[in-house]
């Protein structure tokens, strides 16, 4: 499966996938009108990655603002991770935020409430 490298736009985040490293990164705001169209390729990549082998998968997120349809699409992604986790696959999410904006913590924390795999929310130190 080809890796994704989608540059950020005004309303969509930067997205990159690294099959060899088992890493998906997303950075920026996400409020496209049609979120499912935007996230379709990311979801397909994650499904394909989790369908083979037993290598770990890590999501590194620096998402800031998400509209509700992006939230729903992201929930679909976390559901895939949850299902893989239930089968013993090592998966994790690291969500980094700018300490000046506490809303990002609220957003990430509400996702984490519904996930039982390792899910870290940490101030961005880079």
């Amino acid at each position, binding site marked *: 499966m080809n890796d994704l490298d989608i540059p950020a736009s*005004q309303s969509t985040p930067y997205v990159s996938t690294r099959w060899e490293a088992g890493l998906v990164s997303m950075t920026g705001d996400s*409020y496209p*009108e049609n*979120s499912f169209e935007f996230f379709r390729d990311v979801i397909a990549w994650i499904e394909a990655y989790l369908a083979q082998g037993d290598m770990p998968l890590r999501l590194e997120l620096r998402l800031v*603002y998400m509209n*509700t349809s992006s939230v729903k699409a992201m929930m679909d992604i976390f559901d895939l991770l949850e299902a893989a986790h239930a089968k013993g696959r090592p998966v994790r999410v690291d969500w980094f935020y700018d300490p*000046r*904006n506490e*809303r990002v913590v609220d957003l990430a924390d509400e996702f984490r409430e*519904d996930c039982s795999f390792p899910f870290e929310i940490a101030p961005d130190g880079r």
Partner: protein
Amino acid sequence: MATIDLFQLREHFNESRILLCFNGPISRSLIEEIGNALKNYLQADNAQPSAAMDVFSVYVELTQNIRHYALAHDYDELQGSATVVVARDEDGRYLVQAGNMVEHADGEALLARISALARMDKAELKAAYKAQLRQPRAEDAITGAGLGLIDVARKSARPLRASLSRIGARHAFFSLCATI
């Protein structure tokens, strides 16, 4: 044709502490551009980052709802026009108001939905949001499937206020106001 009295209009904007307003056909890119302007105004207005994000978020949900509604009903550009106002109230809170033309029956259903949301406390709204998030989505659905209004209600410091004004036999102007 009488010219529009810009000075009077400006006085009205100033008295009502209107930061930004828009009236007309709205596109995907226009939502982004006005959103950008709104972010800049809020920064210049020294809004707290969390308040600025809530105002932006309510603006995006309401205007995207208007776009989705107009597209779903095959409205032309004018019928799908949005009226958007961001202002400050006497207490310094931000008011985000958006309105559009709807089918009258839909407007009535929206009013009922808004008054149900207005009666819920924060914990009930969170439970409703999580329940809606778990609703299966129709195959062809592209929207947040009803999450938007609950999200707006959660971000509003005061209960949402909505009104409906008749336009002819079939249509009405639906207007919604959130307070941040």
